[in-house]
């Protein structure tokens, strides 16, 4: 341990960045849950909306992936 403060900061930052993925998880769960709630109310319309479901999940997940990327960059690239 040479007291590399930049390294320490990078690792702490990576950990903090990973918290952003929790938000993405909440968002994806929200999308899927609301889809399921809607599908149970009107099952006949559900099949036509699976594409929209996956697009919504993909967009919500993209933001989580960004924070994951930031974490990885801090861990390995800084």
């Amino acid at each position, binding site marked *: 341990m040479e007291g590399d403060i930049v390294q320490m900061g990078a690792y702490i930052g990576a950990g903090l960045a990973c918290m952003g993925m929790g938000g993405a998880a909440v968002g994806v769960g929200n999308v899927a849950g609301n889809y399921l709630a809607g599908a149970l109310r009107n099952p006949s319309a559900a099949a036509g909306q699976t594409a929209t479901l996956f697009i919504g999940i993909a967009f919500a997940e993209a933001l989580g992936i960004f924070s994951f990327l930031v974490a*990885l*960059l801090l*861990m*390995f*690239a800084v």
Partner: protein
Amino acid sequence: MATEPIDMEVAGMCVNEFGGAIGMPQLCGEWFGNQIFWLVVALVAIYFILSRIALPRIGSVLAERQGTITNDIAAAEDLKVKATEAEAAYDKALIDARAEAHRIVAAAKADIQADLNKAIAQADVEIAEKAAESEKAISEIRASAMQNVEEVAKDTAQAIVAALGGSADAKTVSAAVEARMKG
């Protein structure tokens, strides 16, 4: 993973002397060219495989199957129409047979009824004859009984008159008895 040390000159910037990754291999710039080149090759290869061979073939197979299915559905429609016709004919035959059966049953019933009526009429006649005979016999019996009673009554009355000491000629007594019996 290779654990023996390898030549640093050969391994390049992104791999350490044990063959392990330094940082993220994904961000190692010296591998980009290789990957991009082979990716383009792979994608072009897949594109030509798909657009030249696979997609037209699968499309034609699907179209052919669609055609076959359409034909089969048409044939099935024909068969269905035929089946409906056959069913109608069958129904008609059934109705005819049922009507025939009804007719036969009615005829049989009428015959039986006629026989029955004839038998009843004959029985009635016989009964009537028997009844008339009986009536006649009864009336004869009654008439003879009446006569006997009259004679007994006359004899009895004459005997009673004689016993009472009166002389009674038979004519008077019998007239009196007749008058009494009529009253």
